[in-house]
C-alpha cells in the first residue's frame, strides 16, 4: 500500500522534494554539523493546553507590532516643529499643529493602508498587554513560576513593565490632544517625586512643559530602546522555556520526569503558524472595523484644552484610577513640598503588585521549604492560598482599573461621581481581603468535591428505584483520564514539622522569630484538604475546620497513595537551606 504521494508504506519519502531536502541537509550539515541537534529540535515534544496559547498571543502581537511599527516609522515625523495643515482632512485645514500630529494625519489619510496599519498597531499593543496579563495569571495560578522557572517569571514582570512604558510612549507620539494630556499628567507626576522630581521633569522634557524635545525623545525610546530590550528579553524567555521544556497540565501519564505532547515538527509548527495567522487576521478585522485612537477627532495638542472623558489605554487604567482615588495629602516639610497625593498612587499600588509578584516564588519556596523542581502544573484549587492571593491581586488591580473609568461608570449607572470614588477608597482595602477569603473557601470546597468524586464516583444524574421503593442516584467511577487529574494533587509543604517526634524539640528551620514567621507562613500557604486515601472514609470528610492542616502534609506520603497515583514526585530536598 502506498500513499497518494507515492511514498512506500514504511514511511520513507522519495521523489524530487526528498532529493532537494536531502541535498540541502547535506550542504548544511557539512558546514554546521547540525543533523543531530536539529533532529532533536524537530522532535521536541510540546505539551498541549489551551492556556499555553496565551503567551503565544503576546509573542505574535509583538511580532505584528514590529511589522506594523516599522511601516509607520517610514512616514511618521517625530518633530514638534509647528506646521500649518493643508491635507485631506479638511476640518483641520489651516490649523497650526506639530509635525508629529500632521504626519500622523498623513499616515491616516494620505498613505494607502496607513490608517489600517495604525489601527492594527494600536490594537496589537492592547492585545499584547492583555495577553501578557492573561499569560501571567495562568502562570501564577498553575504555579508554573516555581523552580526551575523563576527566571522566566521575573523576565515576564520586566516585560510587562516595559510594555506599559512602551505603550504610554507610543500613544503619546501623535501629539494629539488626548496623548498630550497624558504627557501633562506624566510631567505632573514627575514633578511630584521628592527631591529629584523637578530636575527629572526638566531633563525629560528639555525644559518646561511641553517644550519641543519630548516627542523626538519618546520616539527613539519607543522605536529602538524599549523594543530592543523587549526583543532581547523575549528571546531569553523563549530560550529558557525551550531549554527547560514546557510544563504540562496534570493528566494521565503526565509526570515530573516526562513531557507528553506532540512533536515540534510538523504538529506544533503547523498549529502555532495557524495561531499566528488567526491573531494577525483578528487584528486585521479590528483594524478594519473597530476605530481606535481617532486622533483627527481629538485635534492637535494645546496645553489650555482638554476633551471630556479623557481616558488612557486600558493598561494605564490602574495608574489613572489610583491617582483619582487618592486623597489630597501633601506635607510641607521644612520648606519643601512632599506630594503624597501623587507619589503614593504613582508608585505604591503597581509597585506592590510587581514587587509582590517578583518576590512571591521565593517567599513560597522559603516558607514551604519546597526546593524541588516542578514540571507538572498545579490545578488552582489545589493551592488554595496561592489562588486566593492571586484573586486578591486581581481584585486590587481591578478596583484600581474600574476607578480609572469611574466617570464612565458614574455616567452609565447614573450615580454620583464622588460616590464611586468614595466606594473605591474602601473597596481597595476590603475587596482583596474578601476575594482572598472567598476564593480560598471555594478552592477548599472544590478539593473536597474532588475527594468525593474519587471515593464515591461522580453523580450520573440517573435515579434508580430499588425494589423496596427507595430512590437512589447512581454514582459512576470517575473516568481514568479525569482520575489522573484528580490524583495529581500534591501536599504543598515539605518544611520540617514544628517538632520532630515526641521530644517537642523544634526543628532547626522553625526556631527563633524568623522560624516562627516561616512556620506561620507555611501553615497558611499549605492549607489544603488532605488527599483522598483509598479507604473511602476519613480524610475525605469532615475537614470544615482548620485543624487538620498539618495532617495534609503527611497525607500524601507515597505509602498511602491510591493505586494509580503517580509517585514520581520529587524527593524533599532539605539540604538546600
Amino acid at each position, binding site marked *: 500500500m502506498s500513499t497518494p504521494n507515492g511514498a512506500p508504506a514504511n*514511511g*520513507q*519519502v*522519495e521523489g524530487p522534494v*526528498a*532529493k532537494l531536502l536531502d541535498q540541502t541537509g*547535506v550542504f548544511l550539515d557539512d558546514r554546521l554539523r547540525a543533523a543531530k541537534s536539529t533532529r532533536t529540535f524537530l*522532535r521536541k515534544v510540546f505539551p498541549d493546553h489551551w492556556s499555553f496559547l496565551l503567551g503565544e498571543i503576546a509573542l505574535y502581537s509583538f511580532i505584528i507590532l514590529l511589522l506594523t511599527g516599522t511601516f509607520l516609522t517610514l512616514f511618521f515625523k517625530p518633530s514638534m516643529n509647528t506646521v500649518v495643515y493643508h491635507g*485631506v482632512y479638511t476640518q483641520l485645514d489651516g490649523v497650526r499643529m506639530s509635525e508629529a500630529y500632521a504626519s500622523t494625519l498623513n499616515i491616516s489619510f*494620505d*498613505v*494607502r*493602508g496607513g490608517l489600517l496599519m495604525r489601527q492594527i498597531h494600536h490594537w496589537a499593543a492592547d492585545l499584547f498587554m492583555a495577553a501578557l496579563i492573561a499569560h501571567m495569571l495562568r502562570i501564577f495560578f498553575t504555579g508554573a513560576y516555581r523552580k526551575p522557572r523563576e527566571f522566566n517569571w521575573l523576565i515576564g514582570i520586566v516585560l510587562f513593565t516595559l510594555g506599559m512604558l512602551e505603550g504610554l510612549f507610543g500613544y503619546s507620539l501623535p501629539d494629539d490632544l488626548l496623548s498630550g494630556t497624558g504627557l501633562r*499628567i506624566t*510631567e*505632573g507626576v514627575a*514633578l*511630584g*517625586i521628592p527631591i529629584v522630581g*523637578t530636575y527629572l521633569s526638566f531633563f*525629560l522634557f*528639555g*525644559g*518646561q512643559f*511641553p*517644550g519641543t*524635545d519630548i516627542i523626538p525623545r519618546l520616539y527613539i525610546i519607543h522605536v529602538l530602546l524599549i523594543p530592543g530590550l523587549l526583543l532581547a528579553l523575549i528571546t531569553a524567555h523563549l530560550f529558557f522555556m525551550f531549554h527547560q521544556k514546557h510544563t504540562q497540565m496534570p493528566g494521565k*501519564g503526565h509526570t515530573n520526569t*516526562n*513531557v*507528553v505532547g*506532540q512533536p515540534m515538527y510538523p*504538529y506544533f509548527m*503547523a*498549529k502555532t503558524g*495557524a495561531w499566528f*495567522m*488567526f491573531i*494577525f*487576521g483578528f487584528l*486585521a478585522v479590528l*483594524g*478594519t*472595523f473597530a476605530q481606535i485612537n481617532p486622533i483627527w477627532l481629538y485635534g492637535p495638542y*494645546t*496645553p*489650555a*484644552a*482638554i476633551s471630556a472623558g*479623557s481616558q488612557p489605554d486600558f493598561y494605564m487604567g490602574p495608574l489613572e484610577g489610583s*491617582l483619582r482615588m487618592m486623597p*489630597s495629602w501633601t506635607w*510641607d516639610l521644612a520648606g*519643601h*513640598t*512632599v*506630594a503624597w497625593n*501623587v507619589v503614593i498612587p504613582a508608585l505604591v499600588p503597581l509597585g506592590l503588585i510587581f514587587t509582590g509578584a517578583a518576590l512571591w516564588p521565593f517567599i513560597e519556596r522559603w516558607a514551604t521549604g519546597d526546593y524541588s523542581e516542578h514540571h507538572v502544573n498545579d490545578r488552582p484549587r489545589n493551592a488554595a492560598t496561592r489562588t486566593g492571593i492571586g484573586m486578591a491581586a486581581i481584585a486590587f488591580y481591578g478596583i484600581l482599573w474600574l476607578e480609572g473609568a469611574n*466617570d464612565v461608570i458614574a455616567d452609565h449607572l447614573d450615580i454620583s461621581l*464622588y460616590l464611586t470614588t468614595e466606594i473605591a477608597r474602601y473597596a481597595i482595602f476590603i475587596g482583596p481581603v474578601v476575594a482572598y477569603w472567598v476564593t480560598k473557601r471555594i478552592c477548599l470546597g472544590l478539593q473536597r468535591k474532588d475527594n468525593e468524586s474519587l471515593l464515591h464516583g461522580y453523580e450520573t444524574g440517573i435515579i434508580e428505584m430499588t425494589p423496596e421503593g427507595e430512590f437512589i442516584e447512581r454514582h459512576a467511577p470517575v473516568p481514568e483520564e479525569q482520575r489522573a487529574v484528580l490524583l495529581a494533587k500534591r501536599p504543598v509543604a515539605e518544611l520540617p514539622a514544628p517538632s520532630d517526634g515526641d521530644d517537642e524539640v523544634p526543628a532547626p528551620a522553625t526556631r527563633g522569630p524568623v522560624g516562627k514567621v516561616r512556620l506561620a507562613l507555611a501553615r497558611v500557604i499549605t492549607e489544603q484538604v488532605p488527599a483522598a486515601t483509598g479507604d473511602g472514609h476519613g480524610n475525605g470528610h469532615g475537614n470544615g475546620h482548620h485543624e487538620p492542616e498539618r495532617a495534609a502534609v503527611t497525607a500524601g506520603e507515597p505509602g498511602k497513595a491510591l493505586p494509580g497515583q503517580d509517585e514520581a514526585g520529587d524527593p524533599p530536598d532539605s539540604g538546600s537551606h
Partner: protein
Amino acid sequence: MSGTEDYPADLPGHGEEAEPSRAPHRVIGTPPPAEQRTLLGTAVQDSPPPAPRELPSDPPDPVKAKRAERIVAALFILSMLAGIGFIAAYIGLEVNSGGLDAVFRSNLALGVSMSVAFLALGVGAVIWVRSLMPDVELTEERHPLASSEADRAAFKETFEEGADTSQFVKRPLLRRTLIAASIPLGLAPLVLLRDMGPLPGTSLRHTVWRAGLRLTLAGSNQPIKPEDFNTPGSMITVIPQGYQDDDNAIAKAAVIIIKFEPGQLTHPTNMNWTVDNIVAYSKICTHVGCPVALYEQTTHHILCPCHQSTFDATAGATVLFGPAPRPLPQLPMGVDSEGYLIAKHDFYEPVGPSFWERG
C-alpha cells in the same frame, strides 16, 4: 585538496564520539554519494540503524482526509485571492483625491482582504492539522536540570583555575585599580545626560502674566471687556495677549474667568482681584496639571476631567473633592484705561502641580 572533512581523532570534543569519518574522500567535481549519507532515508554507514518510526504516515479515515484536503485547498485558494485583492485594492483605490470617503473605502477594502487572507490561511492550517495529520502523542523524558556532581566540580575547578591563572585573585593591586578605573567610567554616562535640559531654577514659580498684560479669549485672541459678559454663567478660557502660539507660556498661564451675580463671590476669594464680579483662576490643576475645563453653572463647581478634583468657583476655588491639594491660584485682575481686562500682577504663588522646591 581532497575535499575531506575528517576531523583529527584527538580534537577536543570529538574524540569520545569516535566517528571514523563523516564524509568519505572524494574527487572534486563528482557528486557526493548522497544515498549513503542521506538525512531523511538510509542512515550513514557505521551508525546505528534508525529509530523505529514514531509518527504514523496516514490519517485513519482516507475518505474524510480527502474531503478535508479539498476544504483546505479551497481555503488556501481563498487566501490567495484575498491576497491578490489586497494588492488590487492598493493599486486601484486612490486616497489622495477623494476625501475621507476614499480613505475609508480604501481602508475597508485593504482591511477586509487582509483579514480574509490571514484567517483563511489560519483556518486551513488548523483543518490540515486536525483532519490530515494523524493524532499522535509522544512522550519525551525529562531529566533534572542540575548538572551532575562531576560536571559541577569540573566547572568550579575550571573557574578557579582561570581566576588563579589570570592572577586576579592573587594580585589585589590589579583588582582594586581595575575596579577604581571602572567607577568613573560608569558615572560618565549619567553626567552626559545633564544637558538634556536646563536647570529648573525658579521658572516654575512664574508665568508670563505681568501688570498690564491683557486677557484675551482663547481661540479668537480678542481682548475682553467686562461689559462683554451679558449674563453671568459660563466659564471662559483666557490666555495672555500675544502668547497664543507659545505652548510653554500657555502651559502655565492659561486662565479661566467666570462672571457671577453680585454677592455670589465669597471668602476666601480676593475681591480686590476681581472686576465687576468676574474672577480669574489658573486653569492648570494643582494635582498634576490638567486643564480644569468642566464647569457646572448651578453649583459653581469647577471640575478637572482627568482626576475629578473639584473646586468651588465662588469661594476662591477651594478644593471640594479629589486629589488636588490646593485651590486654583487666583489671578490679580483689573482693567486698563481702555476698559479691557488686564492682569495686575503675575500669580502670587506657583501654579499647577506640587513640586519639591515649591515650599
